[in-house]
């Protein structure tokens, strides 16, 4: 009998431990709790990024409350709760998006809920969104891990009166009201292809190192590159030898890069439109002192090591947009949706604070999109400045 009493005691102790454990950790996670009062560090960190494409501009002047006042631009989000669902936890790029999102919503007086799924899978995102529906948030901004897989869940959210917009990585038209696109697909394709054209000197072999084979964005960009190359005789001397997939894993990306090098001795350029792949490839090329050059899409902080004009660096230049701005624009569009300024129809316009006015355009999939702007070029001249930003 005493034994039995013991088991109850133990289970009670376990529950107690759980209680205290949760108490402690929910405190630690206060960044996402509704009553978040931090603003100073986030704002100051975001300050240099608040400027758009021209980095040298008035960064310092826009700090703190000043930025907030300007940012609201009449948009009022007080009393409303805005949720952001990124692709996965523990990814610096995602954190930057959250940062921008938070800055705008908090300046407008709204509450932010950040959801970082435990893994970059659809079902982790479904779980997160379902939880947000329960909490009765006013808007959800989501960077989808799969274009179609969130449809059922997001439809449910919309049916519950929640405004849904996508950003960074598209969901299909049925499961969103609008989509904040970091850059037009064609534009990215064109930019990358031109970079390849430039680095090869107009002719020769190049390869692409992508993320996973199902990555929506990468596939769209690669398709755009291919179709542009086909359609323009300017690129006729460029030969795309292979699209390799590094699964956004450093090890596999490394393997794949090395395989490309040994398979194609005449290779001139590798184009890696993914942040993990580009840095893995950059390291391989630089370590080996290979003559193959690299370009693609990468985070400046990750790539600073490898960007340089001389042969000691593997990447002369690369591109990316500002993930902080992407987060901010997602926030502005969410506020506009919640306030009814836009409905998600093509042609709607809204003001994104200091970022200016944006118009919803046709995304080509029966839905609308908002394009942040052209991708930004990082070269040896500006990389030092940007590597500390994101």
């Amino acid at each position, binding site marked *: 009998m005493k034994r039995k009493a013991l088991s109850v005691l133990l289970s009670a102790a376990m529950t107690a431990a759980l209680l205290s454990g949760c108490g402690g950790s929910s405190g630690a996670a206060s960044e996402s709790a509704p009553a978040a009062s931090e603003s100073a560090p986030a704002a100051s960190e975001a300050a240099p990024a608040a400027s758009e494409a021209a980095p040298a501009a008035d960064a310092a002047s826009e700090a703190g409350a000043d930025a907030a006042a300007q940012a609201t631009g009449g948009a009022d989000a007080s009393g409303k709760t805005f949720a952001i669902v990124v692709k*996965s*936890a*523990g*990814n*610096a790029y*995602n*954190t930057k998006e*959250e940062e921008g999102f938070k800055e705008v919503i908090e300046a407008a007086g709204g509450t932010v809920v950040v959801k*970082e799924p435990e*893994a970059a899978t659809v079902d982790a995102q479904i779980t997160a969104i379902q939880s947000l529906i329960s909490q009765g948030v006013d808007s959800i901004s989501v960077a989808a891990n799969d274009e179609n897989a969130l449809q059922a869940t997001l439809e449910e959210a919309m049916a519950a009166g929640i405004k849904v917009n996508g950003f960074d990585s598209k969901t299909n038209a049925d499961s969103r009201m609008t989509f904040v696109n970091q850059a037009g697909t064609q534009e990215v394709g064109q930019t990358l292809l031109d970079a390849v054209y430039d680095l090869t000197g107009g002719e020769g072999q190049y390869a692409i190192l992508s993320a996973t*084979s199902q990555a929506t964005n990468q596939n769209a960009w690669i398709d755009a590159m291919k179709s542009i190359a086909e359609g323009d005789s300017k690129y006729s001397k460029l030969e795309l030898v292979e699209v*390799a*997939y590094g699964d956004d*894993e*450093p*090890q596999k990306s*490394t*393997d*794949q890069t*090395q*395989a*490309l090098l*040994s*398979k194609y*001795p005449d290779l001139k350029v590798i184009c890696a439109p993914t942040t993990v792949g580009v*840095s*893995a490839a*950059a*390291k*391989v090329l630089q*370590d*080996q002192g290979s003559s193959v050059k690299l370009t693609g899409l990468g*985070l400046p*902080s*990750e*790539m*600073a*090591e*490898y960007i340089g004009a001389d042969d000691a660096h593997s990447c002369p230049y690369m591109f990316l947009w500002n993930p902080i701005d992407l987060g901010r624009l997602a926030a502005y569009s969410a506020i506009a949706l919640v306030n009814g300024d836009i409905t998600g129809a093509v042609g709607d316009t809204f003001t994104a604070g200091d970022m200016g006015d944006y118009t919803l355009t046709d995304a080509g999939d029966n839905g609308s999109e908002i394009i942040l702007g052209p991708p930004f070029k990082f070269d040896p001249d500006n990389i030092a400045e940007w*590597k500390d930003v994101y």
Partner: protein
Amino acid sequence: MEQKSLIKKITGSREALLFCILIALGVVVTILNPTFFSPTNIAQIFRNNAIIMIMAVGMFCVMLTAGIDISITSTLAFSGMSIGMLQKHDIVQSTLLMFLIAMGIGCIAGFLNGLIISKGKVAPIICTMGFMYIWRGMAYVVGNSSWASGEDVSQFAKFGKDGTAGPYIILIVVYGLFFVLMKWTKFGRKIYAVGSNAEAARVSGINVDNVLISAYTIMGLMAGLAGALSVSIYASAQPNMQYGKEMDVIAACVIGGVSMSGGRGTIVGTFLGALILAIVAKALPLVNVPSIAQNTVKGVIILVVVIVNVVSQRMIDKQNLERREM
């Protein structure tokens, strides 16, 4: 007569068989793509798989005791992220210290596993499953949603840079050390003894709990070392580092002939098993098998190797029976 004994030796010894498979594999790939057999390629095979190979040594010790550890890549991520963050925030920059810290963290993780498994009588797979979640979560927590990138760890990454001897030296030292340790020392034989028959070991005065704890601590140590090496080789530390690779490590051991029921296996076999997997991973893109099929090929190899092993064992048994005079 001599020839016969040679054949017998090959079929009788797992290592010799694996070595033959390895050679055959190398030859086939080289014929299909001559660039495969180049010094750089071979060097890359070792360098890129140093992490799996090092952890395979620890897994070998654990599997010898009839255990298993599926928390290793989480331990790797936790130790790797820890030193990554230490560098990012410029707290520690010494390469040696980095390795020591990572290995220390690994040791603690391994020790906890060993303690719970031996003293708490918990099934290894369950205990390590719990820690798999815990350490992976801790890796995210210490990272606080950021990662250590090329520039943060640039100093440290010099150690594992392509072309430097660092990773190879670590590989050679680890395998050399454990080859001696497992075969020629009392400590190594104790691990074998516990895995072969824990009850007998207890009766003959071996402290079984201590042996288990040391085996898991070695595993943790290796995972920590692999964590540091991984940060150095890939010049980055992310919380999802090497996710799911524990299965590759187990597969390497199993292909290498380490028995899951304990007490059987050699360090050479483990090495060859890891090498076969490494060559397959390296060779597939070279012989134009789409990388998408890589997993399937890997799975098939695992199954084929273990089934062939069983079938050949049955055939040997049957032959022995038929030879028996009546």
